[in-house]
């Protein structure tokens, strides 16, 4: 849609989503001197480095200690700081979930958990590091906002928005290059989903690196005579129910696609909504109750069935039901 200021597919760029977080945190830090950053010995790779260089007096290195990472941040938030904690998502929130639950969510402190190197785009590091369960872990926590940006440009805006938000938050970042579809003028608000490509026949809901895959699938499907509506849903919690329901009332069938487990994440959130309010056929695409493995992102997306070709096949299946 023109008012979203999206790039034409031929003009898409390529950059790791985490880079946008790094830029956004510096901007947030410039705007508000209460922003602090904490890291668990992964300063460069989480992209918290630019903030640490610019504001060394507001940067805290906790070492390889993720439980301490988030609980120290809880204490700093109690004294008026807005802490961003960065590590790999496999370790934070992977290892310190209970500390996040008790000292940040139940205690209601505005700590922002930055989960870098999440999902299959972590590639060669293998299953231990390719966490696929982080969105589910964070989504079940009361008070927690959960954001999975679609590209680096959106990650920058999401970081700035989280810095201004009063709630605890989680932002998921991918490691390797992925498509850049949005521009500085593309809107982003916490809690909003956006119709990136309008259509009539099927609603495809995606976030993270899978939004570009969904857009590619829409183009393939258009040539096959299927008019797909693509909803980019970066905020998994709170979910933008209105945008999703409006679309599904029209299309009456849905595919969700995410770079994580199909239980508890975006697909879980959408199917919970639809099963109560608007039951329609749904296919959830993602990783299906198995772990990742070593490989390039392209090899892994092919293996786990998360390419535009796979989405198109599923769309034919559900539309022709």
């Amino acid at each position: 849609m023109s008012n979203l200021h999206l790039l034409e597919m031929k003009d898409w760029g390529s950059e790791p989503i985490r880079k946008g977080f790094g830029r956004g945190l510096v901007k947030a830090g410039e705007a508000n001197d209460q922003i602090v950053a904490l890291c668990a010995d992964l300063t460069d790779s989480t992209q918290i480095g630019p903030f640490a260089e610019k504001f060394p007096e507001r940067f805290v290195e906790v070492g390889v200690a993720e439980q301490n990472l988030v609980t120290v941040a809880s204490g700093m938030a109690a004294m008026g700081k807005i802490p961003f904690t960065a590590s790999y998502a496999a370790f934070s929130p992977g290892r310190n979930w209970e500390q996040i639950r008790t000292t940040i969510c139940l205690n209601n402190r505005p700590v922002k958990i930055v989960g870098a190197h999440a999902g299959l785009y972590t590639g060669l590091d293998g299953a231990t590091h390719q966490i696929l369960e982080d969105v589910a872990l964070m989504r079940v926590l009361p008070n927690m906002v959960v954001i999975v940006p679609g590209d680096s440009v959106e990650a920058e805006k999401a970081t700035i928005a989280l810095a201004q938000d009063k709630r605890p938050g989680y932002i998921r970042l991918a490691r390797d290059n992925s498509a850049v579809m949005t521009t500085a003028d593309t809107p982003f608000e916490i809690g909003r989903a956006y119709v990136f490509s309008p259509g009539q026949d099927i609603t495809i809901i995606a976030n993270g690196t899978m939004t570009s895959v969904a857009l590619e699938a829409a183009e393939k499907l258009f040539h096959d005579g299927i008019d797909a509506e693509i909803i980019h849903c970066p905020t998994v919690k709170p979910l933008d129910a209105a945008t999703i329901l409006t679309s599904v009332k029209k299309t009456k069938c849905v595919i969700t696609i995410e770079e994580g487990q199909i239980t508890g994440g975006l697909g879980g959130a959408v199917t919970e909504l639809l099963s109560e309010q608007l039951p329609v056929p749904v296919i959830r695409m993602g990783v299906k109750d198995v772990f990742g493995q070593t490989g390039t992102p392209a090899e892994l997306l092919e293996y786990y069935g998360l390419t535009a070709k796979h989405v198109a096949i599923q769309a034919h299946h559900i539309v022709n039901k």
Partner: protein
Amino acid sequence: MSTKNYTDKKLSIDKLQLIANDIRQDIVKSLEKAGSGHSAGPLGLSDIFAALYFDILKHDPSDPKWEERDILLLSNGHCVPVQYAAMAHSGYFPVAELATLRKYKSRLQGHPEREKLPGLENTSGPLGCGLSQAAGMALAMQMNKDSHRWVYVVMGDGELNEGNIWEAAMFTAKYKLHNVIGIVDRNNIQIDGTTEHVMPLEDLRAKWEAFGWHVIEIDGNDIESVIDACAMARAIVEKPIVIIAHTIPGKGVDYMEYDYHWHGTPVGLADVAGAPPKNEQAKVALKELRTLRGKIKNESNHE
């Protein structure tokens, strides 16, 4: 009654001992009414909490968010009955409300919840998280150039089994957060038995020292020692300070003292070897406490 009176005009040690004794009686009464909760730890901590709320802490019960207040974190949240009783006696809420401990809709939740009760500084229960929160608060205070406040954090000794504590111990020493004062309730018991049986902690002093802390060891049931140790801790600026406070679990109730079976058991719930029958337990405990084991006449008028 405002605690400004307690904090501005120092109370005598004798008076503080009587307050600690009132706190103990309220712990026994509120746990009996609740029918669940922990007995031994709160009773052992009563002298420390009387000292904290009525002498050591800079605080104002009529203004729990007072910006100059000291912070007190209870890391071992299961001992919260002692904190509730101390808070009530110092004026945060009516003493009568202690009877709602662990009841539906009560502000006095089974484990402390910051957002439920003004005056609580954190939410705790799952162990091992208090020291790192204290360190985060102290670091933020240093960043804010807020130099005349201290963060006190009470930890259990069984709680020191948690790895998070030692992550926090390294961190606090790294940043030389001398505005953190840790108080370890060294009562030697945890739920499954004695600490040295469940998971040995000794040499505990050497452990903290090796982690870069200044260690003070005291008799934690001696109120004057508690006050003196905290005064000394505030004078040390090179390192964070931990006070290992040796306490008697169940202190003040003869049949509970030193017995780990009372760690997680309230009075009146069950018959326990060596204790009065369950429906006599509260009465016997309160009688002992009211008379300081026969040393004084009955001071209080309540039943």
